């Protein structure tokens, strides 16, 4: 039953551009995919290790800027800039992890918020490199041999591949002794360490993989919107990610993806349905109702 549903879902995803002709709808789906990668990355930290990164937009922004700068300034191919963006964000995740995860909990939250603030300030003030608040326009669309991935349909498949990759990376980690170590640290750190789980090492590992995946999402975002500005570091991005993870179901693989689709489509649907004054009110109400009635999130409530 579950396998059949999975096959149907995969078929639907693979043929989606054929039955969604509207470019706007496809744009929403692409953004949902990019947020899906981002939410999955945050879920690795928040859902599995229990550590809340409130500066996750920093890793997303580092990925976006790294990829944009490498392709614009040094004319790297997108296919080299993409892994470089993952690496740059991963290195930032390692540094933050080493610095903050020895302390855990509230200290980690504070350090991640501060880190995002510092990175945002650098992006605004280092004019020579980042062009400051004006941002970096003209980020090139990826090319694959003779084909440009400029069209929404083509980019959709690139994002779909990234979602599949992020999902598979998370699944392989979670289904292994590494994933069990993550969960053990979230559940009972003292017991976890007494059975041989090196807390700091595994939390740093989670931070590196999580930041790397956020960098992947950042790179995809930069080459899709073709423009990067300090707005990628906005706190609202992080808040949106947290909402996606918590509402979808933290600590599950599908939860962040469900949350990403729901909370990318919802603002767009509300925009079409009502005036802007009511949009935020309706958004907030839906969020409160979700948290109140489905405190464990959508996926754990309906699919377990």
């Amino acid at each position: 039953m579950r396998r059949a549903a999975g096959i149907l879902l995969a078929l639907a995803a693979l043929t989606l551009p054929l039955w969604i002709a509207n470019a706007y709808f496809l744009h929403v789906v692409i953004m949902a995919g990019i947020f899906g990668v981002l939410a999955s990355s945050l879920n690795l930290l928040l859902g599995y290790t229990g550590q809340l990164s409130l500066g996750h937009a920093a890793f997303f922004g580092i990925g976006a800027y790294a990829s944009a700068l490498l392709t614009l300034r040094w004319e790297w191919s997108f296919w080299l800039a993409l892994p470089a963006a993952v690496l740059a964000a991963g290195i930032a995740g390692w540094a933050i992890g080493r610095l903050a995860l020895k302390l855990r909990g509230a200290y980690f939250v504070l350090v991640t918020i501060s880190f995002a603030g510092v990175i945002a300030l650098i992006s605004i003030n280092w004019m020579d490199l980042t062009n400051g608040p004006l941002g970096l326009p003209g980020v090139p669309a990826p090319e694959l041999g003779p084909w440009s991935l400029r069209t929404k349909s083509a980019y959709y498949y690139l994002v779909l591949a990234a979602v599949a990759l992020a999902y598979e990376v998370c699944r392989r980690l979670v289904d292994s002794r590494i994933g069990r170590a993550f969960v053990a640290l979230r559940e009972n750190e003292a017991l976890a360490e007494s059975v041989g789980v090196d807390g700091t090492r595994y939390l740093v590992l989670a931070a590196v993989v999580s930041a790397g995946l956020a960098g992947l999402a950042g790179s995809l975002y930069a080459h899709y919107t073709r423009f990067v500005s300090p707005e990628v570091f906005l706190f609202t991005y992080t808040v949106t990610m947290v909402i996606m993870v918590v509402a979808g179901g933290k600590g599950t693989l599908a939860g962040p993806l469900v949350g990403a689709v729901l909370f990318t489509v919802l603002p767009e649907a509300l925009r079409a349905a009502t005036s802007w004054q009511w949009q935020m009110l309706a958004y907030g109400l839906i969020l409160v109702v979700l948290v109140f009635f489905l405190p464990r999130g959508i996926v754990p409530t309906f699919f377990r």
Partner: protein
Amino acid sequence: MTLSVRDLTVQFGGVAALGGVSFDVRPGSITSLIGPNGAGKTTAFNAITGYLRPSRGRVSYGDAVLTFQKTSVFPTLSVLDNVLTGLHLRGRAEVWSVLAARRRVRAEESALRREAETIVAFVGLAHRRRDVASALPYGEQRLVELGVALAARPSILLLDEPAAGMTGAEKDVIGGLIRSIRDRGVTVLLVEHDMRVVMGLSDTVIVLDHGAVIAEGTPAVVQSHPDVIRAYLGTGRAED
């Protein structure tokens, strides 16, 4: 290997909770440390496991370093996953092999899962293997703790009041289990209040009173020892 405790002294300020306690725990035996309230049992236990730093004395177990394992469960994990987590150090897969070398990792996972299943069956929780640990009754949660401890393949197991808070039937189950653990060659040192459990289970009983060893021997010898009777009851039999 023999667990050897020599001249173990623990002082809290001016109060000597343990005053130069010495004893040996024979390999492959069940040895119980008993005594009335305030006798120093838990202090001795904590000093032996290294959780408490003794003021004086030495605890040796061959060349091995004793590691202290917290006894509790991972509450939202299943019984099987609790034991699998206890097997963490038995796995070798690191991040690159987890991401890239799937065949090797799958083989390792299957082996670990088989071992976890065996341990879960050994502690009598095969029928509960998929249940979330925190949803189990207290007695069964303690069996999960034992399963997690056994996953480390210990040669010695130090248990602090394993039967505390259990019903009579649960005490019989855990008693039988501790005997089976001993029969597998694991040395067991118990600190326990329940005299029925201690006398029915132990090969050797060491009695502490006011931070000193007042008697040591088989349950029958200790039960009839005049100092033990005096420590527990003043007069009469040494019953709890």
